[in-house]
């Protein structure tokens, strides 16, 4: 099975599926790709996840998490996912910017949950490079969302210039 996602503003097929690890669950199968909730990692560490036997290892953050606490794991992970349980819950935008701009995360930053067409541009401006659209939404059709604005007023992850630096 594959997942179609938007990566760096193009539709790509991923030949694996991220599984979110749940406390109490058996050790993940060899070769699987696992997202560990930050709260779990903070309590138990990541030692139980053998990076050499897994395809990929990542963290998943919710809006309640403090992104500064993810920093200690940066060396050991391939991806940070941030969940948006509802599109109206905008905490993940701040979390994305903090991970990129303050804590220096340079690997994959993935937005998951209720991700819709009209959020894509803002998510990418806040540092998300992989966008997993809500099930049933066509990523091809959503690509035009990145082209809506050709200029921006504010600096963000994608630009360290405000509009007044360009005037």
């Amino acid at each position: 099975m594959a997942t179609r996602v938007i990566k760096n503003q193009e539709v790509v097929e991923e030949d694996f599926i991220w599984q979110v690890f749940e406390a109490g669950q058996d050790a993940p199968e060899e070769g699987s790709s696992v997202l560990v909730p930050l709260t779990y990692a903070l309590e138990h560490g990541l030692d139980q996840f053998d990076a050499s036997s897994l395809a990929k290892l990542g963290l998943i953050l919710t809006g309640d998490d403090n992104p500064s606490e993810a920093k200690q794991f940066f060396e050991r992970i391939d991806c940070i996912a941030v969940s948006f349980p509802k599109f109206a819950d905008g905490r993940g935008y701040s979390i994305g910017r903090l991970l990129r701009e303050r804590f220096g995360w340079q690997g994959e930053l993935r937005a998951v949950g209720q991700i819709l067409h009209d959020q894509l541009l803002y998510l990418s401006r806040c540092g998300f490079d992989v966008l997993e659209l809500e099930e049933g939404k066509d990523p091809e059709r959503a690509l035009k969302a990145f082209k809506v604005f050709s200029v921006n007023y504010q600096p963000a992850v994608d630009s360290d210039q405000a509009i007044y630096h360009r005037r």
Partner: protein
Amino acid sequence: MYRYDHFDSTLVHERVAQFRDQVNRRMEGELSEDEFRPLRLMNGLYLQRHAYMLRVAIPYGLLSSVQLHKLAHIARTYDKDYGHITTRQNIQYNWPKLQEVPDLLDELASVEMHAIQTSGNCIRNISADHFAGIAADELEDPRPYCEIMRQWSSFHPEFSYLPRKFKVAFTGATNDRAAVRFHDIGFRIVENDEGERGFEVIVGGGLGRTPIVGQVVREFLPKQHLLSYSEAILRVYNLHGRRDNKYKARIKILVKSLGVEEFARQVEEEWEHIKGSALLLEQAEIDRVKAFFAPPERNPDALLDDSYLQAAKENSRFSRWLKRNVHQHKVPGYHAVTISLKAPGVPPGDVTADQMDQIAELATKYSLSRVVATHEQNLVLTDVESKDLVALFSALDDHKLATPNVGTLADMICCPGLDFCALANSGSIGLAAKIYDHFDDLDYLYDLGDLKLKMSGCINSCGHHHVGHIGLLGIDKRGEEFYQLLLGGSASDDASIGKWLGPAIAQDDVVDALDAVVKTYVDLREDGEAFLETYRRVGPEPFKERVYGN
């Protein structure tokens, strides 16, 4: 006033194209109503009781004649020949059709206007003192900073899905006419001990179900940090504001639950990280924007012609209008003229397409082509020379725009109520009509002096009832319209929240109750005392006795 450069213009046009695409996707069913709602709201489009309502932004209330003519044209073409000025200096149209809204937005874009972020859980249109730039008590014109803030907050990628809406107001004057203590952030331009100008930053004020007076988070913020400090406040709010209950989601609740000291500590900590970022405003940009608001060239002889004073002696109607609707200007020989949109028989704040055209023409002729919308739902011509006052009065009078009741009880703030709003419990417009009918004696109104009556049709308090000297709140009691009566509120420097006087009053009895309130004041006032001063001195008891009697 500010003029768009190609960046501003590009953005507004691209926004129209985006919204057109969103409307198309909604019409084709690709977007569900649930998905479309926040998108249309972020463009000021509400679904009301009967139809869509579109709220158009008037940044800090300032309009050119050209823009006002366009608003008149829109009222004619897309609405039923009128618009409604709101308490946040915007204009609302009550009858646009969804499929026509993109065309309407195109028309707005052609005169450098838009409906961006006039609703939704984002940073709303920035409001300001309606006498900004001309007030005698002003330290500095706040509008350049409003414009800088407007740009920074437009399409902000991080702050477009906040816990709740976010309202910002500015004043540069000593008397607060912008209600900065009742906004999510209020900025006051102040001077520090070294004589430098900066902002006092007030956070966490608001009305709604939980009225709270904002608190000072920082006493002096150097100007170049306006945006970085705002970003710090918004980030703390976006991450920590409540999202589980929309009635507890405004920043005022966060500030209250953390305490202002802890909230300020978190903001300052965040700010330390970003104060040196690209958000640091360069003086060149401040100067660039300021240049748009530079004082216009004025007639050096404006002061010489004071024939209007003689005219006032001969014409009592002109004299009344002069007293109530004409205000001091910082330049002698010039005046600010308020056009009251509180004429009897008209819903407060409503203005017809013809009137908009007439006002725009008069602004071109007599007031440097500028018009300002006020949060008290009137329009102001900001730069009228003494020599033109008589002619202006007579032209306004011809169009029923010279109602001389500004600042009186009849100059009430009122929400659209049941007639339009899907949330309302009561027909505040109908009650406003009864109040006009009863208080129709101008001399009596003048004798009552400055009196702010504010009326909301429901607990969401769009009519600012908490901060009226007299406030009225419509409630539903077993299917009947009742009103809570509040006294003692103020949105100004002496900010206070009105207190319930007693049990709710049936709609039919509200006018009598108001009558009892003002008579109590008249009986008890001491020399020259305004209503609010008397109330604060004597307290609610005498009012209560008279209203509820025995």
